[in-house]
Structure formats: C-alpha cells, structure tokens
C-alpha cells in the first residue's frame, strides 16, 4: 500500500521581502522599542509602511552600511531593538568586521535584515548576488541565522525575532515565490518543520529551495520514491534532532539552498551527521562559483538550484545507501 503524500498548493505568489515589510509594519504597531535603519534601499526592502507610520523611529543612514551597523549597535544601548535593512551582500561581507566587533562580540540585540540574497536577485549580476552570506554569518559566535521560505514565513520570522534577545541574521529575497505556509503560523527559532513524510530519502531545504523541494517530492512520488521534506528555516541553531531522526528512517539526505555549498546549510547538516549518524549526502547548492546576470529562473536552472536538480541529487544519493 502506497503512502499518501501530503501535498501543498498555493493561490498566490509574493516576494519574501514583502513578508519582511509586513512583519516590520506590524512590529511598528505592537512594539514601541522596535526601530528601523536603512542604507538607501527603502523601496527594495519594503520598509515604507513602517516608515510612514513611525517616522520618528526610522533612521535613513544613506549609502554607509558600516555606519549603519555601528549606529544599530548604539541604539540597543537605551533599549531599542534595531532592524537594519539593505541587500544581503551589503548586510554581511561589506560590514563583516563591524558586525563581528560592535554587534556579535558585543552581544547587541540587532536584527540584520537582508534582502536580495542569492542568485534570484537576477539581472544585476554577481556583484550583488551574495552566495557566501550564510557561511559568513553562521561562523559568528552567538549569531542566529534564519532563511524563511515564503511571504508568510518571512513575516512570522520578522515578528518572532523581535522577541529574541540577541543578534539575528534574517535572509530573504526578491522574486515572487509561492505562498504555501499558513498565515497564522507561530515561528519558532531553531525548530525545523517537517512538510512531507517519507521513507526513501530526506530532503532538507532552506529559503526559496523549500518550494522546489516540495515540487521535487511530488515528481519523485510519481516515480515511486517517497521523500521526506523538511523546511530548515533556521540554519543556526540547527535542529539536529529533526535531521538525525529523519535520516534514521530514510538512510540518505539531500540538502538544498541558494548558497555556495561551502559554508552553507549543507555543510552544517554534514557536520551534524558526521558526528552523530554518518549518512550519504548530496548537495544542491552553487559549486564554489560567483553568479551572473540573467532572469532568476534562468540562473536557478543554470546553477542547478531547482526541482530538477533536487530530483537528480535524490536519485544519486539513493544509490549510495
């Protein structure tokens, strides 16, 4: 008797950055300590609603991201909860030492909110398409790293991190992607979400790749392969237990992320498995490369970050069991 697979559908697509904007706007209404900072990218980060409603709690920094990170650290001294907004590239690599010393080492309650992460930024090309940010941020002691998968989850994550006391890196993106998680979800930092139950392979995905993993699992189901799909929205702290439990059942795993395979979710998963339960693993990620200009769909196809790539990786890893 075949397993009945849980399926996911959607009626609307939206960008995850708009989920951030909606979450920030809600925080503006509910938490008087929340303040927002932006380095000349208000529209791109969808911060207008918060700014319109709370102009006194918004700081336009100009094109000066290093200064923005320092000011955010300073604002916490006095009880504010600063949310910084700029592209992922300028939120991490450009200001790494500022984040390291003034925020992470100093233990400041700053929320670093990063849009346009990964290849799906599209036509602007590799200068703006950071594929190293998860690695950079997860290596900082005490930094929480979150990469939600759709509009609803990004909104929920934005609201949830205001209640967490400590530095957080929240990564989201530009393209419209299916909304398939519930609008009323409670976001729990560090808690993986099992989306489908399966017995042949575990697929853990983060961010935009979660929907692709669900698409892959549908196609695999038709081919007689039962895939367990897990949404890892929090890369650090990683839900080790959920991963170990799943591979104990399936015996192999594919990780999927819009990020370099060096330093990303896949490496974190490999570390957990190497320590606790050595398991064959394949990586759906970019292969130590920069991106390039193109439409998001073209890029995700060329660099192997979609449902097809996940299906291929599944077939490969299952042979290694």
């Amino acid at each position: 008797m075949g397993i009945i697979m849980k399926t996911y559908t959607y009626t609307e697509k939206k960008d995850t950055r708009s989920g951030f904007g909606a979450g920030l706007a809600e925080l503006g209404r509910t938490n008087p300590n929340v303040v927002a900072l932006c380095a000349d990218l208000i529209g791109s980060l969808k911060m207008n609603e918060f700014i319109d409603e709370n102009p006194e709690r918004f700081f336009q920094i100009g094109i000066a991201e290093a200064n923005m990170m320092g000011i955010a650290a300073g604002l916490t001294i006095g009880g504010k909860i600063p949310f910084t907004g700029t592209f992922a590239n300028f939120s991490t690599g450009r200001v790494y030492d500022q984040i390291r010393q003034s925020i992470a080492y100093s233990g400041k309650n700053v929320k670093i909110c990063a849009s346009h992460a990964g290849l799906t930024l599209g036509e602007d090309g590799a200068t703006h398409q950071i594929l190293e940010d998860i690695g950079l941020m997860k290596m900082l002691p005490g930094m929480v790293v979150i990469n939600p998968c759709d509009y609803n989850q990004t909104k929920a994550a934005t609201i949830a991190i205001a209640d967490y006391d400590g530095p957080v890196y929240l990564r989201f993106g530009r393209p419209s992607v299916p909304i398939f998680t519930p609008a009323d979800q409670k976001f729990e930092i560090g808690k993986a979400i099992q989306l489908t139950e399966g017995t042949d392979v575990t697929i853990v995905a983060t961010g935009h790749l979660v929907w692709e993993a669900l698409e892959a699992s549908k196609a695999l189901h038709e081919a007689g392969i039962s895939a367990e799909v897990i949404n890892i929205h929090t890369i650090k702290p990683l839900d080790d237990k959920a991963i170990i439990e799943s591979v104990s059942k399936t015996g192999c795993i594919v990780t999927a992320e819009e990020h370099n395979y060096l330093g990303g979710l896949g490496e974190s998963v490999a570390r957990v498995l190497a320590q606790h339960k050595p398991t064959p693993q394949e990586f759906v990620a970019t292969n130590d490369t920069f991106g390039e200009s193109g439409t998001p769909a073209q890029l995700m196809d060329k660099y192997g970050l979609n449902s097809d790539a996940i299906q291929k990786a599944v077939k490969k890893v299952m042979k290694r069991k």
Partner: protein
Amino acid sequence: MPNIKELTDLTTQVRRDILRMVHKVNSGHPGGSLGCAEFFVSLYQKLMETKDGFDMDGIGEDLFFLSNGHISPVYYSVLARSGYFPVEELNTFRLIDSRLQGHPTTHEGLPGIRIASGSLGQGMSVAIGAAQAKKLNNDDHLVYSLHGDGELQEGQNWEAIMYASAKKVDNLISTIDLNQQQIDGCTDDVLPMGSLRAKFEAFGWTVLDIEKGNDIEAVLEGMKKAKSLTGQGKPVCVLLHTVMGNGVDFMMHTHAWHGKAPNDEQLAIGLEQNTETLGDY
C-alpha cells in the same frame, strides 16, 4: 566633587597603574594611555553625570565610548578608581580568565564597558546610535566618545561624521586625541590628514581645540565649554592636543611606546617620575 589637587593626584596614580599594568604582562599600549590620563580623570571625576552602579542601557546618565580601544589601560584604571570595579582587578589585565581583556569588551561583563572596541573606526557610529536612542527616550544626558587621530584614517569615521551633523546629533561630544603619532610614525608621515578642524567644520560640526590636553585645568575648562555647545543643532568635536607617553620623560613625543611595555629598569624610572599618591593596587 574633587578639587584640582585631588584630580592631579589621581592622574599621577593612574599613570602608575598604566605603567604597572603593561609592565606586568609585557604587553599593552602605554603611550596613548598616558597621553589621555587627564582627559579620562576629568571625564569620570568631574564632567559626566553618572548613576550609582552600572546598567547597559545607561538611561538617565551620560555615556562614554572609547573607540581607540587599545588605550584600555587608562580606561580600566580610571573605571576602577571611579568605583566601577575593585582596583585590585587591575592585576588581572590581559591575563587568562580576566574581565580586563587586551581591548575593552562587554563580553566578560566588566562594569563600565558598553561596547567592544579595538578594531578601529567603529566607536563614533556606536556613540551616535546611543545618542539617538537618548533622544528617542527623551533623555537629555550626553554621549561622549574618544578617538585616536590616526584612527581617523578609517573610512567609517567619515560616514559617521557626515551623518552626525546631517541628523543634528547635538547631544554628542566626540574628542580626538591629537597626539600626532601612530604605530608606524608621525601621522604626518604615515598619512597626512591636513587640518582636522577644517575637515570637521566642513562636515558641519562645532569644533574646539584644547591646546593643553595634559593640563587638567585646561581639559576641564575646554570640556565644560564643549558641554555648553551641545543642544545647538550640531555635534561637537574636541581636538585634544596631547603628548603621547605624557608624564614619563623617555616615552614622550615618540610613537615608540605606542604598543610596547617598559622593562624592569624603565618601569622603575617611570614610577620614580610619578610617585605614589592614592596607593598602588
């Protein structure tokens, strides 16, 4: 409130602390520390309004941020002698398991420290953020910061300097330790910065010089003037003219003692030139 004699005695004792701290661990930064002793003593003993005890948010009191964190010896000595932690703890400077790290940090929970510094050029942005938080909190206390002159070669400072005047952060007094020395030599040899007064003024700040940065009365008078210039729509910059290594003759007017500790003999000479006033730790 301490009188000038008491402040001078404290300054001498702070210089002894600095020398003994760096000598014990054969590392640390005595030059800039000695040059700023009068400034720190004035700030913590006379100028700043502070609450009893220490809390991170510092609402309802003046705040200070050290951007050039390598002069931690003077900072630690003055914090300890102002009651933030026991002076005996100065014995642990730079040792394993100490709250007195080589560069100041919040990580070990040392009272008085509100941000880590050491990687240069970051403190002014932090001070600006804290000053803007004060405005949001309707807290009319001031934020002070200290920066090395060589440190101004870091670009982030100029982002911060531009921002502070544009956003009218007028509850901030940023002091530049103008000793004209950095690790590799005179600032004018390493990277000449021209007139800092002209630069700060061009960026929209109110600027005042304290020509005698190692004269406690001149420092007090200058900083009181700086205080009177806050709240007028502009951030205030104090150019504090100091002598690196001040108070120890062989350490003065040279970059050689930026990051070098005295040996036993040199320590003895330094301490002889700064006789014990309040008691060594």
